[in-house]
């Protein structure tokens, strides 16, 4: 059952978006989010939507996987939608029930808010779907490296992220094993109320933590044996390089932001 857990799902591929430098993708994502929040009208939303739709089309990632990833967000989407629907003040009242009224402004606002969240999440999905976790951590490290000047442990953070990603499947497998072992001794995880179920997790968590600490200790020794001394003087096998398509993508992203800004300037 735990095998289904997927984090940072990556769909390997050969599209232009896949081949972009992770730094480019991260920066463009930030730009895209800014544009999304600057958008105020149907037209500017449309521009951002076209940008996203074209990007998805180029990436060749099936739309189905985006919908799948959206499922856990249903509650937030509904909540935002309903909140905006009922609590936006407006003049054109559509429906009036007791003291609660639904206005045309409310409907439009709710639609925009839900649409904004959907586009925001889809954009980030596109990044994680087309970029391997290791490229992503590399990109983050490279982008954040100026912060080393103010003593932020950028390399250490990215190393930690990389190791965490590496050990997620190992620990998931281990949890599965421990669960089976405890079930074999008569542990019951599936019945009882919430409190009982949480309590039943203790015999899983204790061995899992002990084993995780032991693994950490052994890994640290192994890393030391391989001359790990932190980020100083370390080189990389795969250097990040910007190509023509990276600059092209920056241009498109810049156009997007400019377009949204100009439209906003015209009050659209």
């Amino acid at each position, binding site marked *: 059952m735990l095998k289904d857990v997927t984090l940072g799902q990556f769909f390997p591929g050969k599209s232009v978006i896949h081949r972009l430098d992770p730094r480019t993708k991260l920066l463009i994502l930030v730009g895209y989010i800014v544009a999304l929040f600057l958008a105020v009208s149907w037209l500017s939303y449309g521009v951002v939507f076209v940008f996203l739709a074209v990007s998805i089309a180029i990436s060749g990632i099936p739309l189905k996987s985006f919908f799948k990833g959206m499922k856990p967000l249903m509650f937030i989407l509904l909540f935002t939608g309903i909140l905006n629907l009922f609590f936006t003040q407006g003049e054109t009242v559509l429906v009036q029930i007791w003291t609660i009224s639904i206005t045309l402004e409310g409907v439009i606002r709710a639609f925009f808010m839900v649409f904004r969240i959907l586009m925001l999440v889809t954009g980030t999905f596109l990044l994680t779907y087309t970029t391997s976790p290791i490229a992503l951590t590399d990109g983050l490290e490279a982008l954040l490296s100026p912060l080393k000047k103010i003593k932020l442990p950028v390399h250490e953070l990215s190393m930690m992220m990389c190791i965490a990603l590496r050990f997620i499947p*190992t620990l998931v497998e281990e949890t599965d094993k421990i669960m089976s072992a405890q079930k074999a001794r008569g542990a019951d995880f599936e019945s009882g109320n919430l409190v009982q179920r949480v309590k039943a997790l203790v015999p899983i968590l204790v061995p899992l933590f002990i084993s995780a600490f032991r693994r950490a200790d052994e890994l640290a*020794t192994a890393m030391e044996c391989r001359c790990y001394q932190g980020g100083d003087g370390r080189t990389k096998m795969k250097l990040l390089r910007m190509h023509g398509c990276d600059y092209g993508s920056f241009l498109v992203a810049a156009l997007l932001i400019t377009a949204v800004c100009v439209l906003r300037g015209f009050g659209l």
Partner: protein
Amino acid sequence: MDKAISVEHLKFAYPGVDDTPDIVVFEDLNLQIKQGSFVAVLGGNGCGKSTLAKHFNSILLPGGGKVYVYGMDTSDPEKLIAIRRCTGMVFQNPDNQIVANVVEEDVAFGPENLGIASPEIRNRVDRALKQVGMYSYREHAPHLLSGGQKQRVAIAGVIAMEPKCIVLDEPTAMLDPRGRREVMDTILKLNAEKGITVVLITHHMDEAAQAQRVVVLHQGKVAADGTPREVFSQVELLHSIGLAAPDTAELCWELNKHGFDLPLGSLEPDECAQILYEALKV
């Protein structure tokens, strides 16, 4: 430099917790390992084999006496990186020594730490992966590999640093028979083709039998030292310290108790069969 590793009058004890006395592992251990040789270190539980291995690249420092690795004193902090560059180490659990979530990235980890230029790292990684026969898996995720494959990736990660010596601490203990054979074949190949000194810590007799030299440790002392033939023919000695000789030697020894006079040095089943054939022919 002829000597790869030289242990001189090594003393070591793990400090006791609270009021318990220190656990003495070595009182006066002496051992020399020649460059290019394949040495197996055998011993029962708690005889100090893993502790000894950890002295070979400064993870543990001697409490007395000296350990020299290619002439460098392991207790000299300035030599630490140079020593770890010379002697790579492979541990028992393959899962706990793989750092990255792509095979080739993991193999690159060591050379990256050494600050080697990117194109050279690429060369070394490809070469190392080919040497252990894992090149076609270079873009796989490590958790999807079998135990033997993971351990070979770990070995590739060590040889990508181009060490002169590899210390393997029970590398096959967690593997199935097939994985064990894969790992042993890789080790033998590295020793024969690349001339890398191999120190194999093990408790499998059949693995030790493939080495050029076998050192048996018992209670922190060298109990026996010599070629596999010499060591394994001392069946009584091995029994007295809780070890078993390889099945072939055990068989001949049991037969000798019942009036035969067979040599005990046979290590291969075919060789043993030949000896039995000769004995029974008359």
